[in-house]
């Protein structure tokens, strides 16, 4: 283990987690409030800084200065542990996302693992502990019901989510996110095979199962991050505020931030898998091979392209939240187990047949 590798990894962790993802979380909270205001014909927060952009800072200070109240009837240790357990896995999943091609000859990914999507699923499946524990440790009815709901919801949709990317993995024959993105940069994004080898009957035929995957994956992501239309674990109309009813100040904020962090990482994974990650359309500025040197300004443009796509995806999340009504719980479970699960399985078979016929 060379020292320069450790130092490079440490710099990447600090920059990507604390200077990129966390500010993006703060900005998406601001965007959520502004967009929801626009949708509902209100103004939204516009007083702190230009366009209210510094609202996140004001919110943060408020959360830190508020009284941190711990109810007497809770199980203290787990009550304190739960918020951290929601936030930490969300940030850990950053590790395998390729944020860009290369800068200063370094790959713009913290850990270039060969099991990228599996790692994300493994760590994301730990997020459920935070919510379950919050519900259980609060030791009161509504949070508990929220915790129970969330467990069953997240387990159900994890299966759909995992199955939905199997066709993609079959087509690329690789689990390394960096190589998947490189392949898409050369031969067309998974969803839009409009250049390179993708521009052929085979490419278009294979785009069909990928589109089905994309729909299932995106919908499951809404359920995994507990966002409307699937926010039944918190569901104000039935459960007060669900699992975080008993929480106040920064501990509540951690749940809130964890949800947004999970949303950003989910968007990042979706962009990486289906929309070409950091690559530009039509193979512009694409490096010739995966190990090729990338000029500095190309690397910057690639980083910019990734974040532009992620931001568009986050806006999509926000617009959906303020457009659709909430599902009923049995409808949610039905959708997951009766429709998506079967469609995802059929999709795997369809992809296998297509790959075999088009071989």
């Amino acid at each position, binding site marked *: *283990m060379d020292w320069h590798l450790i130092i490079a990894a440490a710099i990447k962790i600090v920059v990507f987690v604390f200077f990129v993802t966390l500010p993006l979380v703060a900005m998406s909270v601001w965007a959520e409030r502004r967009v929801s205001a626009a949708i509902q014909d209100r103004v939204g927060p516009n007083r702190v800084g230009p366009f209210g952009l510094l609202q996140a800072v004001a919110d943060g200070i408020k959360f830190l200065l508020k009284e941190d109240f711990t109810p007497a009837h809770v199980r203290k240790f*787990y009550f304190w542990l739960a918020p951290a357990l929601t936030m930490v896995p969300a940030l850990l999943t950053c590790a395998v996302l390729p944020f860009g091609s290369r800068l200063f000859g370094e790959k713009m990914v913290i850990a270039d*693992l060969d099991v990228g999507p599996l790692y994300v699923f493994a760590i994301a*499946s*730990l997020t459920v*502990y935070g919510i379950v524990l919050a519900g259980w440790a609060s030791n009161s009815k509504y949070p*508990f019901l929220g915790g129970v709901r969330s*467990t*069953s919801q997240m387990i159900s949709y994890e299966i759909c989510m995992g199955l939905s990317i199997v066709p993609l993995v079959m087509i690329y024959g690789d*689990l390394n996110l960096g190589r998947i993105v490189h392949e898409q940069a050369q031969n067309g994004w998974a969803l839009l095979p409009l250049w390179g080898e993708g521009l052929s009957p085979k490419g278009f035929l294979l785009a069909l199962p990928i589109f089905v995957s994309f729909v299932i994956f995106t919908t499951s992501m809404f359920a995994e991050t507990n966002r409307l239309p699937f926010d039944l674990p918190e569901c104000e109309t039935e459960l007060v505020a669900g699992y975080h009813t008993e929480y106040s100040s920064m501990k509540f904020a951690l749940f809130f931030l964890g949800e947004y962090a999970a949303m950003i990482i989910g968007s990042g994974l979706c962009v990486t898998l289906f929309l070409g990650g950091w690559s530009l359309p039509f193979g512009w500025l694409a490096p010739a091979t995966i190990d090729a040197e990338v000029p500095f300004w190309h690397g910057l443009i690639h980083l910019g392209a990734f974040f532009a796509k992620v931001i568009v995806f986050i806006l999509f999340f926000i617009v959906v939240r303020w457009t659709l009504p909430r599902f009923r719980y049995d409808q949610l479970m039905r959708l997951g187990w009766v429709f998506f699960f079967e469609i995802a399985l059929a999709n795997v078979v369809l992809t296998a047949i297509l790959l075999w016929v088009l071989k």
Partner: protein
Amino acid sequence: MTFLFCLFAALALIGGIGVVVCRNPVSAAFSMILSFLGLASLFIQLDAFLVGTLQVLVYAGAIMVLFLFIIMLLDVQEEEKRRFPLISFAGAGAVVTAFLVLVILVLNRGGTAGRSLPVVAPSESGQSDVHRIGELLFGTYWFPVQIVGVLLLAATVGVVVLSKKELK
């Protein structure tokens, strides 16, 4: 590297002890998750990324969630009050001691003692462990894999039938 090994081995051991010692079932379940995470880290240190990740995904992420789900619905206070008779401690101690003696005997049996363990050769083609495991499972051992798949499917169907019996 040795430092990391000690750290994660300690994590796995502390988790394991916690499972036995904790009276609160939720604490016990969490100790088990801790132990699984330590074990997964050890696998990853051995460059077995797939095994390590699956350890987290399947055991920590899926099976233990279901365990916790059930435990949460129990009456924890009653469970905490329960005391075990002394004889069960004695029995557990005897089993652990016997196992320890067995391990020491096996390790000291001539042949393996003092010899370094075989080094796993990195693959010639530079392929990842995922590819190699995949090729083994779906190439060399495709038939047993299919059989196991059918067995698991039968078990799943059996569980559904058993749990739906009263609704008929």
